[in-house]
């Protein structure tokens, strides 16, 4: 390899026709297949090396939708029903939301995307994976779109057990722990299916760090959080046991809503845990102002041989489109601490549904242009 490869975190803007089918809760199958073909073509044309299906098989109802990466699983797990939650819903213990209560109540940029979530899918009976047909459809669509292209240069995202724990409360299992293991066991089926198809499996795991703010920051404290988080990594590794390590990419972010993120758990305090996840590559937010300095963590924490980092070098957290020179500067910084062969250019989070479609595509262009600039300097 003589350059920095490019990828992104998953979600891409849904075309209006597909969005409309989802809105009408109509059969999406034919629209979906052609949309996936088109989005793969567009990524390749743009210069994205490791492409995906834009998460188009994950249902959205609106152009701006922060939740599809996790809510898609509603249709793929049994054991849940919609229930009302006490005031504040699943976010009622968040410290960031308590500290910035007026902002969350008043600001237009979060009003519709991060409500207090008074309702949720609650676990009321045994959790089972039921999404076999849907995941097979998604894998098939992607395979067809790649049209004989190498499957390993494509990835498929799947939600982590801890994120399901975060978003879908337990009212069935005797303990949170027991619930976590049941979810992991169920999700293993989806992970294995993706791995067996020969694609790179991307685990979306904001749950691991978001739960620090949601459950622990206000009262329970760091020691208890660490114990909790260590157990989540064990559960995840169990769920990943059917997939070869080099085919797993682990994505960690601190939640994609446009809030202050004042209580994000510092990467330096969880990096050891992250590296315990059985994966060949780690995709981390690094392109927003809460995590831009996280590159320095890798001066202290050694990235194990053969592993790769996928820092976010463009971000959904601002409408301003990154200058390619900034993208290059960020990549060079990572290449400096991790080695140029161990860095892949990525995004903070999926861009689709988090910024306007035009901006999302412009940011991917900036990503590719910046990676080319960095490559020229790093591999000359």
């Amino acid at each position: 390899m003589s350059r920095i490869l490019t990828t992104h975190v998953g979600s891409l803007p849904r075309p209006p026709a597909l969005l409309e089918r989802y809105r009408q809760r109509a059969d999406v199958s034919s629209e979906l297949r052609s949309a996936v073909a088109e989005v793969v073509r567009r990524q390749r044309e743009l210069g994205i090396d490791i492409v995906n299906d834009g998460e188009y098989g994950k249902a959205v109802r609106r152009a701006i939708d922060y939740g599809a990466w996790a809510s898609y699983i509603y249709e793929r797990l049994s054991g849940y029903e919609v229930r009302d939650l006490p005031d504040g819903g699943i976010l009622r213990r968040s410290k960031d939301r308590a500290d910035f209560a007026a902002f969350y109540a008043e600001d237009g940029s979060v009003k519709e995307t991060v409500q207090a979530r008074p309702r949720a899918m609650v676990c009321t009976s045994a959790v089972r994976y039921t999404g076999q047909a849907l995941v097979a459809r998604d894998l098939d669509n992607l395979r067809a779109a790649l049209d004989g292209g190498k499957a390993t240069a494509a990835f498929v995202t799947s939600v982590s057990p801890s994120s399901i724990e975060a978003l879908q409360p337990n009212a069935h299992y005797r303990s949170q722990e027991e619930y976590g293991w049941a979810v992991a066991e169920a999700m293993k089926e989806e992970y294995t299916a993706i791995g067996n198809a020969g694609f790179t499996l991307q685990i979306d795991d904001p749950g691991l760090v978001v739960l620090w703010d949601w459950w622990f920051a206000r009262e329970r404290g760091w020691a208890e959080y660490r114990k909790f988080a260590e157990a989540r990594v064990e559960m995840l590794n169990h769920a990943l046991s059917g997939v070869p390590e080099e085919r797993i990419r682990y994505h960690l972010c601190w939640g994609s809503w446009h809030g202050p993120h004042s209580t994000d758990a510092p990467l330096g305090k969880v990096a050891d845990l992250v590296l315990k996840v059985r994966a060949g590559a780690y995709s981390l937010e690094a392109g927003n102002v809460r995590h831009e300095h996280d590159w320095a963590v890798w001066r202290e924490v050694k990235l194990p041989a053969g592993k790769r980092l996928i820092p976010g070098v463009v971000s959904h957290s601002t409408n301003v489109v990154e200058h390619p020179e900034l993208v290059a500067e960020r990549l060079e910084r990572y290449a400096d601490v991790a080695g140029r062969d161990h860095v892949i250019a990525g995004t903070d989070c999926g861009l689709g549904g988090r910024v306007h479609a035009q901006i999302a595509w412009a940011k991917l262009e900036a990503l590719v242009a910046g990676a080319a600039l960095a490559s020229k300097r790093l591999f000359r």
Partner: protein
Amino acid sequence: MSDKIRTTHGGSLPRPAALIEMNRARSEGQPVDERALAECLAASVAEAVRLQKAAGIDIPDDGEFGKATTQAFDYGAWQSYIFARVSGFSPAAEVPKERLRRAGSHGVALGRFRDRRDWKSFGEFYQDPEGGPFAGKLGETRGGGIGGARRPVCSGPIRYTGHAALKADIDNLKAALAAAGMTQGFMCSVAPGSCARTEDAFYKSDEEYVYAIAEALREEYKAIVEAGLTLQLDDPGLPDSWDMANPEPPLEAYKKFARLRIEAMNHALRGLPSERIRYHICWGSWHGPHVTDIPLADIVDLVLAVKAGEYSIEAGNVRHQHEWRVWQEAKLPEGKVLVPGVVSHATNVVEDPEVVAERLVRFAGVVGRDNVIAGTDCGLGGRVHPQIAWAKLRALGEGARLASRQLWRSA
């Protein structure tokens, strides 16, 4: 010379609800108790200075509270205030269209917001009724006096008439500084080139128009400096008029257009001590993609031609962050100070103090630790939610402390 990185910001701070409400009522022609408004303004400024001090801001201002806003999100008060302080402007609807001449010279003619090249390239985004995640804020930018029949255009001789309002602003800030036990403060005033962007139906030439504004504004500049305050000249017009000229003009023509405006400003600053003057540029504060922003490297010579002691420049958003490297080539003259933006209105995410420190250390490495003051990209008030704005100022204060510890440790 201090033994730390000092801190300041771009000017605008979140207005208290009571003040916004009184200004809104007044702008709609409702009767307002002027004395109560004056008292509210003075008290609000005192509180703002106290809060800035608590956040760790060494050089505070009055939050631009004397520049009236009528809603919580307002991107335009930094320039719209001046039309209440000079004569010679009327709403466009009252001036015959055929008499209006677009501002500009040397073949550069300024369009309106909707003519911007960024707007044209991202039309779907700009016109999306949902407006993307920043809906509500962007919408108000569109109506903020920039376009439309109520936009002010020049229709008569321009004279400064804002003496009373200006005196109140200066008195309020000085009283607030004294109450907080602080000695240094700054006050914003619009630069001639950023004011002379609306159409003109009165002057014979662009040059005459720009110089007339400069001469009128001199009164404001002088009064601020003579009051012992640092004068901050707000001039987004220098970089962001570039995007208002559509199609893209040749760079040399644009620089001639810009140089005329800078010469007019320097003329207005004649005799004023440069160490009391801070020149602020940014590329426009609306939450758009900004892909057509002119590179700092193309205009840095013009920036340094301004007779100022401090240069305040956006550097905390993703379009301009890499431009710290410009200062490796362009030499900052002896005795001048850079005020880079190290926190930004361009994102709701609050900068980690470590990020702020890293950015400051980078600038100190290029221009020297004694020549850097920590600043913001633009005024935070009216551009992000009040809670976010204040959290960002605290992050700025904390980040400057971290940077100072690193930069003076070895000394």
